[in-house]
């Protein structure tokens, strides 16, 4: 089994030879349960996962398989009960709220199915939000926000409120917001879930561009065609990794673990 994984890593190395293969994410026996007064629901039952820097990964699984929980743990939005999690070489165990906020702000960019833009802020103000928490000067924030809006092709919409933008445009604003802090990793939960196929295509193109720049992208999806546009798909079932699959643009490489 180990040998097979070894093959997959070296293959990945061949595919992304421009990117160094160091561990961006390392999960060891991650467990997570939700407890109510009466029941305990085990969602993650011991996840072992490594994602290298510069990878483009999709997480799939039926509902209740734990894929969103896994993404939340990866994004430090939720803590885990046991196991070890290293992000960019640092342990993420028992972080204080402040440390968590710091790592989220510096290392991670988020994408959401419903975009989560603030309705009373204009596009550029939304994009600038993470920099506010880095205490970046207001003018500097605005300048950078416009720069990133230009990158996603929405500079002309900078002064518009989210309600004046289409779904695809809103998601692009959200991606610009995720990128503005120059994160090491982008985590997105069903980023195309609310979009039509054409717009989904554009958004995936954008994620591809981001990944081409060397940023690690991990997204949760339940759509096969979206997953196929990533370079690696992790399949979750009942809180465990059931499959880990490599994609290549021409020939698909499947390795079942």
């Amino acid at each position: 089994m180990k040998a097979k994984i070894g093959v997959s890593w070296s293959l990945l190395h061949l595919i992304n030879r421009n990117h160094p293969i160091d561990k961006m994410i390392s999960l060891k026996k991650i467990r997570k349960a939700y407890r109510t007064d009466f029941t305990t629901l085990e969602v993650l039952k011991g996840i072992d996962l490594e994602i290298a820097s510069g990878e483009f990964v999709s997480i799939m699984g039926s509902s209740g398989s734990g894929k969103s929980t896994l993404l939340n743990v990866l994004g430090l939005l939720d803590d885990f009960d046991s196991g070890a999690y290293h992000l960019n070489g640092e342990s993420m165990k028992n972080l204080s709220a402040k440390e968590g906020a710091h790592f989220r702000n510096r290392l991670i960019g988020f994408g959401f199915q419903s975009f989560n833009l603030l309705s009373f802020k204009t596009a550029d103000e939304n994009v600038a939000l993470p920099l506010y928490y880095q205490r970046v000067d207001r003018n500097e924030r605005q300048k950078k926000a416009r720069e990133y809006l230009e990158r996603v092709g929405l500079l002309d919409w900078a002064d518009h409120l989210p309600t004046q933008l289409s779904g695809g445009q809103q998601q692009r604003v959200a991606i610009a917001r995720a990128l503005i802090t120059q994160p090491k990793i982008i985590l997105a939960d069903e980023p195309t879930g609310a979009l039509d196929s054409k717009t989904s295509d554009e958004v995936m193109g954008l994620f591809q561009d981001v990944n081409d720049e060397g940023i690690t992208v991990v997204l949760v999806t339940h759509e096969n065609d979206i997953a196929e546009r990533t370079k690696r798909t992790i399949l979750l079932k009942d809180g465990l990794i059931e499959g880990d699959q490599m994609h290549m643009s021409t020939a698909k490489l499947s390795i079942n673990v």
Partner: protein
Amino acid sequence: MNRLPLFDRDTWQEIFGTIRKHKLRTGLTALGVFWGIFMLIFVLGMGEGLKNGVFRNFGDRAMNVLYVWPTATTVPFEGFRPGRYPRFTLDDVDFVHNNISDIESISPRRTLSERNVVVGDNTESTEIRGEYEDMIRLEALKVYEGRYINERDVADKRKVAVIGERTRELLFGDDTGIGQYVRIDGMPFQVVGSFGPVKIESWTEDDMEAIVIPLTTMQQVFGGGQRIDYFVCSAAPDVRVSLLENKVVKALKERHNIAPDDPRGVASDNLEEEFGSIQNLFGGITAFLWFVGIGTLMAGIVGVGNIMLIVVKERTREIGLRKAMGATPVSIISMILIESIFITSISGYLGLLCSTLLVGGLDAIMVAQGTNFENFHHPEVDLSVGIGALVLLVVAGAVAGLIPALQASRVNPVHALKDE
């Protein structure tokens, strides 16, 4: 680059954004605090007016003035039998003035009652008072027209008279009478002014009718030697008049050979005790007004806290997002706290302003219209009360926002972001 969130335009943009979105709700919340602080300051201002009204009835003399007069002794002492009346003279006044410290000013008085007073065809019968120039201050009377007797009048034994307002009216009608002559028991005195009480009460009738002349002139014109009826003195600032009273009485008893343990012989009176009990009463009333006012204010503050809880609930998703974007708990707490303090401070400040204007306006109208209520005078808001109220507001705003802010800081971004 590192600034307090208070000085960041974004923080204020957030607050104004929320307020704009919920104008009515914010307005009603603000009204609660506005009304609370308005009532607090208003009732305190009115309480102050009541207090000023009651204390005005005492007049200025009430606080630190002492009356001393002779009465019959009751204890035999050094060969003197009881029942003797000591006789007070100007020498006693000089003695007290020169030998007892802590006396601010002193004036003797001798009264001649029911004297014939004639101006032209008008004849009146009235009381004549022989005094020193300080008496008007000690008794807290006021000059209506012209002037009171002065030091030179006393020293030169001038034949001048200051007449009570009602007597002036009877003798001179519409004329001030100043410069004219009034005959007292046939002796002409030049009128230099008219006087009367600050406020007309049943017990100030005499002050409306009496005629005041220098005591020195009285002694020369009407005889009676150095004798006086009584004297009035005031204690120096920060000296309790009851302590002065003890010293004066003791000295005079010694001087007139009266037994130190004789409860009579030298009688004296001051209003310190009554003044003190009324002061206590008003202390109690003020405390009660604070209690009621703060109670009203508390209701407003609970309202703000309640609304902030709803605000936090409504903005759960936004707060979750902010946390995902790297907001620390402290930055979330300060965001909610600043908003709460802002709403309470602005609305409270407006309440403070309105009530101060109302109390001040009421006072101005009363002054302009010459309104004179029995027990109400010059309502006012103390500066310290205003500052206290402002400090209270900021603290209140913080308290009102604290629970909602803590709740906001505990928002789990995962649940918040799921919240569709």
